[in-house]
Protein backbone atom coordinates (compact mmCIF):
# COMPACT_ATOMS: atom_id res chain seq x y z
CA UNK A 1 0.00 0.00 0.00
CA UNK A 2 1.56 3.31 -1.02
CA UNK A 3 2.31 5.83 1.68
CA UNK A 4 -0.03 8.74 0.97
CA UNK A 5 2.02 11.03 3.26
CA UNK A 6 4.82 11.07 0.70
CA UNK A 7 2.64 12.87 -1.79
CA UNK A 8 0.35 14.85 0.49
CA UNK A 9 1.72 15.78 3.90
CA UNK A 10 -0.46 18.15 5.86
CA UNK A 11 0.29 21.85 5.99
CA UNK A 12 0.93 21.42 9.71
CA UNK A 13 3.68 18.84 9.00
CA UNK A 14 5.33 21.23 6.57
CA UNK A 15 5.07 24.09 9.07
CA UNK A 16 6.79 21.92 11.66
CA UNK A 17 9.53 21.20 9.11
CA UNK A 18 9.99 24.93 8.44
CA UNK A 19 10.14 25.63 12.18
CA UNK A 20 12.67 22.82 12.68
CA UNK A 21 14.95 24.13 9.94
CA UNK A 22 14.68 27.67 11.32
CA UNK A 23 15.69 26.39 14.75
CA UNK A 24 18.53 24.23 13.40
CA UNK A 25 20.17 26.76 11.11
CA UNK A 26 21.29 30.00 12.68
CA UNK A 27 22.10 31.59 9.31
CA UNK A 28 18.71 30.88 7.76
CA UNK A 29 16.67 33.97 6.93
CA UNK A 30 13.60 32.20 5.61
CA UNK A 31 12.39 29.27 3.53
CA UNK A 32 9.47 27.65 1.72
CA UNK A 33 8.59 24.02 1.16
CA UNK A 34 7.00 23.06 -2.15
CA UNK A 35 5.46 19.75 -3.14
CA UNK A 36 6.34 17.89 -6.33
CA UNK A 37 3.73 19.89 -8.26
CA UNK A 38 5.24 23.19 -7.12
CA UNK A 39 2.49 24.09 -4.65
CA UNK A 40 3.71 25.77 -1.47
CA UNK A 41 2.99 23.76 1.69
CA UNK A 42 4.51 26.12 4.25
CA UNK A 43 6.78 29.13 4.43
CA UNK A 44 8.46 31.23 7.06
CA UNK A 45 6.85 34.41 5.64
CA UNK A 46 4.03 35.39 3.28
CA UNK A 47 3.31 32.14 1.48
CA UNK A 48 2.28 33.68 -1.84
CA UNK A 49 5.51 35.70 -2.05
CA UNK A 50 7.65 32.73 -1.06
CA UNK A 51 5.77 30.39 -3.35
CA UNK A 52 6.41 32.54 -6.41
CA UNK A 53 10.03 33.19 -5.47
CA UNK A 54 10.71 29.51 -4.78
CA UNK A 55 9.17 28.29 -8.01
CA UNK A 56 11.08 30.98 -9.89
CA UNK A 57 14.44 29.89 -8.51
CA UNK A 58 13.79 26.23 -9.31
CA UNK A 59 12.64 27.08 -12.84
CA UNK A 60 15.68 29.30 -13.45
CA UNK A 61 18.01 26.61 -12.12
CA UNK A 62 16.40 23.94 -14.32
CA UNK A 63 16.79 26.20 -17.34
CA UNK A 64 20.44 26.90 -16.52
CA UNK A 65 21.26 23.22 -16.03
CA UNK A 66 19.19 22.01 -18.99
CA UNK A 67 17.49 19.43 -16.76
CA UNK A 68 15.80 19.33 -13.33
CA UNK A 69 18.40 20.13 -10.69
CA UNK A 70 18.93 18.34 -7.38
CA UNK A 71 20.15 21.52 -5.75
CA UNK A 72 21.32 25.02 -6.56
CA UNK A 73 23.37 27.53 -4.60
CA UNK A 74 23.55 31.21 -5.54
CA UNK A 75 25.63 33.75 -3.66
CA UNK A 76 24.99 37.47 -4.04
CA UNK A 77 26.18 40.49 -2.13
CA UNK A 78 22.89 40.58 -0.21
CA UNK A 79 22.82 36.96 0.86
CA UNK A 80 22.68 33.43 -0.44
CA UNK A 81 19.85 31.40 -1.95
CA UNK A 82 19.51 27.62 -1.90
CA UNK A 83 17.06 25.22 -3.46
CA UNK A 84 17.07 21.48 -2.79
CA UNK A 85 14.87 18.76 -4.27
CA UNK A 86 14.64 15.56 -2.25
CA UNK A 87 12.09 12.89 -1.40
CA UNK A 88 9.40 14.42 -3.60
CA UNK A 89 9.64 17.89 -2.10
CA UNK A 90 11.62 21.03 -2.74
CA UNK A 91 12.87 23.50 -0.18
CA UNK A 92 13.99 26.97 -1.19
CA UNK A 93 15.85 29.05 1.39
CA UNK A 94 17.56 32.39 1.85
CA UNK A 95 20.57 32.57 4.16
CA UNK A 96 23.19 34.97 5.39
CA UNK A 97 26.20 35.67 3.16
CA UNK A 98 29.11 33.27 3.78
CA UNK A 99 26.92 30.70 5.51
CA UNK A 100 28.33 27.18 5.79
CA UNK A 101 26.67 25.82 2.66
CA UNK A 102 27.41 22.15 3.31
CA UNK A 103 25.89 22.30 6.78
CA UNK A 104 22.77 24.09 5.59
CA UNK A 105 22.31 21.63 2.73
CA UNK A 106 22.64 18.75 5.20
CA UNK A 107 19.99 20.29 7.46
CA UNK A 108 17.64 20.94 4.53
CA UNK A 109 17.94 17.34 3.31
CA UNK A 110 17.36 16.02 6.85
CA UNK A 111 14.21 18.14 7.22
CA UNK A 112 12.86 17.03 3.82
CA UNK A 113 13.60 13.38 4.61
CA UNK A 114 11.74 13.63 7.91
CA UNK A 115 8.84 15.39 6.22
CA UNK A 116 8.60 12.57 3.67
CA UNK A 117 8.76 9.90 6.37
CA UNK A 118 5.91 11.38 8.37
CA UNK A 119 5.45 13.04 11.75
CA UNK A 120 6.01 9.89 13.84
CA UNK A 121 9.44 9.09 12.37
CA UNK A 122 12.54 9.63 14.46
CA UNK A 123 14.29 12.79 13.20
CA UNK A 124 17.31 12.01 11.01
CA UNK A 125 19.62 14.07 13.20
CA UNK A 126 18.59 12.13 16.31
CA UNK A 127 19.29 8.85 14.49
CA UNK A 128 22.71 10.09 13.42
CA UNK A 129 23.57 11.23 16.93
CA UNK A 130 22.50 7.88 18.39
CA UNK A 131 24.66 5.91 15.93
Amino acid sequence: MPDSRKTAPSAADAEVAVARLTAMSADLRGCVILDSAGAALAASGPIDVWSEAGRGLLAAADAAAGEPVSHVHVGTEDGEAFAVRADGFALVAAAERFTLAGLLLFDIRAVLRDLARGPNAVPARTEAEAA
Partner: protein
Amino acid sequence: MPAKPHRGLLDRVSGYADEASAYLRRRRLTRRPFARVHTPGGRSAACGPETDEGRELFLAASRVIDAARD
Protein backbone atom coordinates in the same frame (compact mmCIF):
# COMPACT_ATOMS: atom_id res chain seq x y z
CA MET B 1 77.20 51.79 5.78
CA PRO B 2 74.27 52.16 8.24
CA ALA B 3 70.73 52.44 6.82
CA LYS B 4 69.19 55.87 6.81
CA PRO B 5 67.02 56.42 9.90
CA HIS B 6 63.75 56.88 7.96
CA ARG B 7 64.21 53.63 6.01
CA GLY B 8 62.57 51.45 8.70
CA LEU B 9 59.54 53.70 8.88
CA LEU B 10 59.11 53.65 5.09
CA ASP B 11 59.41 49.85 5.04
CA ARG B 12 56.76 49.56 7.73
CA VAL B 13 54.33 51.87 5.92
CA SER B 14 54.95 49.99 2.69
CA GLY B 15 54.27 46.69 4.48
CA TYR B 16 50.96 47.96 5.84
CA ALA B 17 49.95 49.18 2.37
CA ASP B 18 50.74 45.75 0.90
CA GLU B 19 48.67 44.05 3.59
CA ALA B 20 45.73 46.40 2.99
CA SER B 21 45.76 45.89 -0.77
CA ALA B 22 45.96 42.10 -0.33
CA TYR B 23 42.98 42.24 2.06
CA LEU B 24 40.95 44.26 -0.42
CA ARG B 25 41.88 41.86 -3.23
CA ARG B 26 40.79 38.85 -1.15
CA ARG B 27 37.57 40.60 -0.15
CA ARG B 28 36.77 41.40 -3.78
CA LEU B 29 37.29 37.77 -4.78
CA THR B 30 35.20 36.27 -1.97
CA ARG B 31 32.38 38.76 -2.48
CA ARG B 32 32.04 38.02 -6.17
CA PRO B 33 28.55 36.63 -6.89
CA PHE B 34 28.41 33.00 -7.93
CA ALA B 35 25.83 30.41 -8.91
CA ARG B 36 26.23 26.67 -9.13
CA VAL B 37 23.64 24.10 -10.20
CA HIS B 38 23.85 20.39 -9.39
CA THR B 39 21.95 17.62 -11.16
CA PRO B 40 20.87 14.24 -9.76
CA GLY B 41 23.52 12.56 -11.92
CA GLY B 42 26.28 14.32 -10.00
CA ARG B 43 27.02 16.91 -12.65
CA SER B 44 27.54 20.47 -11.48
CA ALA B 45 28.04 23.66 -13.41
CA ALA B 46 28.82 27.26 -12.58
CA CYS B 47 26.55 29.86 -14.16
CA GLY B 48 28.00 33.28 -14.72
CA PRO B 49 25.85 36.41 -14.82
CA GLU B 50 27.04 37.11 -18.37
CA THR B 51 24.74 34.40 -19.81
CA ASP B 52 20.96 34.72 -20.12
CA GLU B 53 20.37 31.65 -17.95
CA GLY B 54 22.83 32.88 -15.34
CA ARG B 55 21.22 36.31 -15.25
CA GLU B 56 17.78 34.76 -14.73
CA LEU B 57 19.22 32.61 -11.96
CA PHE B 58 20.67 35.62 -10.14
CA LEU B 59 17.38 37.52 -10.53
CA ALA B 60 15.42 34.57 -9.16
CA ALA B 61 17.85 34.25 -6.24
CA SER B 62 17.45 37.97 -5.49
CA ARG B 63 13.68 37.49 -5.30
CA VAL B 64 14.17 34.67 -2.79
CA ILE B 65 16.49 36.85 -0.68
CA ASP B 66 14.00 39.71 -0.92
CA ALA B 67 11.18 37.40 0.20
CA ALA B 68 13.08 36.81 3.43
CA ARG B 69 12.95 40.56 4.12
CA ASP B 70 9.14 40.70 3.99
